[in-house]
């Protein structure tokens, strides 16, 4: 969090994208978040109608489950959820090197606790930094793209881009909803 109350970009997301480029070539268009998860990190991504959560990471198995219904409804939300789980994998699991972390299920009580809340915010900020790289977003804004146009360019939901514009101090308008 910077002195103005905005979330700064997570450098680990940029590092991950650099690693991806090094191994699989230049990224053109929206960040290929599925390929980052599957091809670079060795995560197995599945969609399921049987889960009642948006997304789920099982570190020991390197499995990511995404809510199939939500995925059908919004590609932007699906991409953000997958990037969020990648955030858990990178930030809290150290890509599998951290051993077996303590169980964390993000129910209401977990979200209310300081630890659970901090981990979720960290994963959210990582996801935003991964899908909406700061340099690219600033360039889009400098080119005059509004939130909706920038969201389309980066393959995210409008609300995700609203938060990114706010956190990068491109706009002062604080979004009122969750991503």
């Amino acid at each position: 969090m910077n002195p103005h109350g905005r979330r700064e970009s997570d450098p680990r997301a940029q590092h991950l994208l650099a690693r991806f480029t090094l191994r699989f070539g230049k990224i053109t268009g929206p960040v290929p978040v599925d390929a980052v998860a599957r091809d670079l990190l060795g995560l197995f991504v599945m969609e399921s109608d049987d889960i009642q959560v948006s997304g789920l990471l099982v570190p020991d198995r390197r499995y990511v489950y995404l809510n199939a219904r939500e995925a059908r409804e919004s590609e932007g939300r699906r991409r953000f959820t997958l990037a969020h789980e990648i955030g858990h994998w990178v930030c809290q699991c150290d890509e599998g090197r951290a051993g077996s972390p303590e169980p964390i299920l993000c129910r209401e009580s977990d979200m209310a606790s300081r630890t659970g809340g901090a981990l979720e915010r960290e994963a959210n900020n990582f996801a935003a930094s991964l899908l909406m790289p700061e340099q690219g977003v600033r360039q889009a804004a400098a080119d005059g793209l509004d939130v909706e146009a920038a969201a389309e360019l980066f393959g995210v939901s409008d609300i995700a881009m609203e938060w990114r514009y706010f956190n990068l101090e491109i706009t002062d308008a604080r979004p009122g909803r969750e991503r």
Partner: protein
Amino acid sequence: MSDIPALAEEFRQAYAAGEHPDAAAFLARVPEDQRDELGRLIRAVLADEPPPDPAPETLLMVQAMRRGEPPLLELRTARGMTRDQVVSDLREELGLEPADEQRVAVYYHELETGQLPLAGIRDRVFEAVATVMGVARSSLLLQGPQGGGAGAPQAVYARAEPGTEVNLDALAALPGEPGAVDDLFTGGPG
């Protein structure tokens, strides 16, 4: 009568080329009463020849293991190969049907990330993985489960609405019925 000196020379050349030839496999190629003689020549090769430099891909995989990362994942990404590409090539190399691809993908994921017990994997699979990766079988470094293997997941991270539950058991099942693919990846050596 086998040509024992020729076999010993073949072993020496393979060893010098860093291919880590399997001495037992060479001994198995000659009648029992000639194995002592071939074994003596092979021991002489091992004693005389300087140890070969490891293949670059082996070094890469050793370094990954030292960092606590799965060696096969490191090898694949270093070669810029996508997992779908590897799974598709592996399925073909093993002579399996396109319908088997999803099952192969699950097993390959477990193999790549060190979750699959190596003792259960057929030799054909190791050969096929080496071929797909473009390395010698002897250069391939694989890792099985550490610390007791895959048991119940120790942790999950869920992006959830408040009050929701997660039933991991319902998600864990492989698609379809067990068959040839399962035998290849869990049926044991041979």
